[in-house]
């Protein structure tokens, strides 16, 4: 398979008819060139004329066949016809000669159209359309105007046939109008070069790669044409040379267009290179850059399909949304065994080379499937991490709710009972046995309230919620059982669950230090920067603490890690214990 688009029968017939017509036109041009009367100017020569026509026609047909939906091929074929038709200028019959003379410059407009619309085949901007209209108007209009005054004899052909449009014989005026046409032509061509240059400077890398051959040959041709016209205007000091150069250059443009359109056949080389590259061990980033290289689009991205979640993720397992149709990015979907596995997000210019994109995707599909499985795994990990964080957050919320409920409910009710008992106690006679009993009850209740207070404080210290981590750590260190030195570098409130985690790490560490370390003092350091908050609790005890088993340290580590942080214990025997928790807060 050579990578041609499949041909439908009508399309085939149409192309065949056009090909036959082209052959006839070419043959006619050859006959005319062979039978031109003596004394006609022969430069740039019939062979070169024919070469340009064949190039336009042949390459146009091949491009049309490769990209039937793209108008550039058709334009090239039409330009080829116009080019051959312009050879009618060599004919002896007056009406044929007149026709040839009138459409002499139309093929230049074909060139303009090709360059402006490449590679999509569509004119995109208003400036494009205006340039073309202006070009057609001046070349055709001024040519016809000149023909009213004279024929080719006006431009130095004494033996030429008369043109049928001629009304007045005034070679001087005819030359004047033709000179004006040439001046307009030069300005228009310079404008076109400027437009193409601006478009190039704004193009993305893949876009530049796609248009480069056509742009180079096209601009060279325009420059050569300008040279030829200027040479004519200043009285032919260089003779036939500029005309020869412009004909040669013109012959290369269709070849460049065909080259780009058939590039997918050449691109098979890059697909083969990709297959070799993917044979080696690869990671997600390698795959992406290999595909980017193969397609010449450095901005290329990959998304993998998770059928269970019906969602797209990137290589890291993070959820992504595919770009909209009008976002300036294109997506090509990759399937394997009928199952969608991935999407390649690329520059829209690659849509003109869909065949190459499909080949590259097919070559990479096995690796893409492997990467998809890994991305799926990573997505599960991301989800797991998120669910751990949600669990911690839910626990924190629950703690706060319980503390609030105890404060507003149970504690208040008990306090109110204590008040009623106080009232009862004061009203009882001092002598009776009841009064001491009530007093005793009230004291017991006060003790229960104190215990409840400690309990709620342990569940969620109100100060932490109300005033933040700095204040809560300050209070915690004041209440600590060992002399505690606190150093704070916290400049702002942090999210609730981060403050809670940092607080409980410190609290648990202080309790451990008092219970197990046999140390005499503790230092606590809490600081935060833009990215994370760090708490470090160090004692001067016997060391030997570990997170193994069901110790409280394991719970702290879980809590910190659930928030994406790191928890480390350094506890060499005899050299004290240092707990350190670093939690990201950005």
């Amino acid at each position, binding site marked *: 398979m050579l990578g041609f688009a499949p041909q439908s029968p009508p399309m085939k017939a149409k192309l065949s008819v056009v090909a036959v017509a082209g052959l006839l036109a070419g043959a006619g041009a050859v006959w005319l060139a062979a039978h031109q009367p003596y004394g006609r100017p022969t430069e740039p020569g019939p062979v070169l004329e024919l070469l340009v026509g064949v190039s336009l026609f042949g390459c146009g047909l091949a491009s049309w066949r490769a990209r039937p939906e793209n108008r550039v091929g058709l334009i090239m074929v039409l330009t080829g016809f116009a080019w051959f038709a312009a050879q009618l200028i060599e004919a002896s019959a007056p009406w044929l000669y007149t026709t040839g003379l009138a459409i002499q410059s139309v093929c230049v407009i074909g060139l303009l159209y090709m360059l402006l619309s490449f590679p999509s085949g569509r004119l995109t901007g208003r400036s494009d359309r205006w340039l073309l209209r202006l070009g057609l108007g001046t070349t055709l209009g001024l040519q016809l105007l000149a023909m009213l005054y004279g024929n080719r004899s006006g431009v130095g052909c004494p033996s030429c046939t008369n043109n049928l449009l001629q009304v007045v014989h005034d070679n001087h005026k005819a030359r004047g109008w033709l000179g004006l046409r040439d001046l307009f032509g030069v300005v228009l061509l310079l404008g076109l070069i400027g437009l193409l240059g601006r478009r190039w400077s704004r193009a993305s890398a893949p876009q530049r790669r796609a248009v480069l051959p056509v742009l180079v040959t096209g601009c060279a041709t325009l420059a050569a044409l300008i040279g030829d016209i200027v040479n004519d205007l200043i009285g032919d000091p260089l003779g036939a040379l500029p005309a020869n150069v412009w004909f040669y250059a013109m012959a290369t443009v269709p070849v460049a267009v065909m080259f780009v359109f058939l590039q997918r056949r050449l691109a098979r080389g890059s697909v083969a290179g990709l297959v070799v590259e993917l044979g080696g061990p690869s990671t997600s980033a390698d795959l992406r850059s290999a595909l980017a290289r193969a397609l010449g689009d450095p901005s290329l991205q990959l998304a993998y399909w998770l059928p269970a979640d019906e969602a797209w993720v990137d290589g890291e397992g993070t959820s992504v949304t595919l770009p909209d149709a009008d976002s300036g990015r294109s997506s090509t979907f990759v399937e394997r065994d009928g199952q969608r596995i991935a999407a390649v997000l690329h520059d829209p210019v690659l849509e003109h080379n869909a065949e190459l994109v499909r080949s590259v995707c097919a070559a990479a599909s096995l690796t893409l499937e492997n990467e998809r499985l890994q991305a799926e795994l990573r997505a599960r990990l991301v989800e797991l991490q998120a669910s751990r964080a949600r669990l911690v957050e839910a626990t924190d919320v629950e703690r706060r709710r319980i503390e609030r409920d105890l404060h507003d409910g149970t504690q*208040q009710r008990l306090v109110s009972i204590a*008040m009623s008992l*106080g009232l009862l*106690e004061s009203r009882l006679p001092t002598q009776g046995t009841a009064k001491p009993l009530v007093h005793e009850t009230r004291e017991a209740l006060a003790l229960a309230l104190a215990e409840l207070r400690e309990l709620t*404080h342990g569940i969620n210290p109100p100060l932490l919620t109300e005033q933040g981590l700095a204040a809560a750590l300050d*209070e915690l260190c004041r*209440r600590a059982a060992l*002399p505690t030195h606190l150093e704070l570098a916290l400049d702002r409130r942090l999210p609730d669950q981060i403050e809670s985690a940092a607080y409980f790490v410190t609290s648990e560490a202080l309790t451990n230090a008092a219970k197990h370390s046999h140390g005499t003092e503790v230092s606590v350091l809490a600081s935060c920067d833009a990215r994370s908050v760090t708490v470090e609790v160090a004692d001067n005890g016997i060391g030997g603490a570990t997170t193994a088993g069901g110790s409280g340290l394991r719970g702290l580590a879980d809590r910190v890690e659930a928030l994406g942080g790191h928890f480390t214990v350094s506890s060499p025997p005899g050299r004290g214990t240092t707990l350190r928790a670093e939690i990201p807060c950005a």
Partner: protein
Amino acid sequence: MRIALADDAVILREGLSRLLEEAGFDVVGLAADAEALLELVERTLPDVAIVDIRMPPTHTDEGLRAAKVIRERWPTVGLLVLSQHVNTRYALELLSAGTDGIGYLLKERVSDLDELSSSVTRVGQGGSVLDPAVVGELVGRRRQADNPLERLTDREREVLALMAEGRSNGAIAERLFITDHTVEKHVKNILGTLRLPQSPDDHRRVLAVITYLTSQ
């Protein structure tokens, strides 16, 4: 003595009001939030305003802020702030501007009618009251071995705590079943050890002691 009372919980507001009336105080009005309290104080100018620290809308330190406003606008009104939690920080913040006519008590403490009565009276007379639980945290904090506080005897530490609670020498003597003279001796020793100025004025003494305790 005329009392204004603010607490957002009805059962506590009503309960405390009954207790206060039982103890012989004149409750001039009740308020459910800080705004209503300020209105009430402006209208009745009571001797003492009793304020719950945690009130609507944020349920954090509205009472504390209302107390500050009252102290600024009506400096003659004594302030007794009530809390359900031991919050040393809030207590010290309250006392930082001066201890005259300022008190901080846990709610459960006020169920004891004698305690309530003496606390309100002390605040009303320009004295100060600090909850034993807060003082306990200040005095009971473990400190480095070379700290002067560590050199006090247990009895001196008890006396220090009662001083910090805002009690007079007479009250301390009564509490510890010792003579006024013994208390004076202890006080002199404590102030000497801590290098605090000897002041005959109970009120000034409280501020000095609390400042000392929090700075260590």
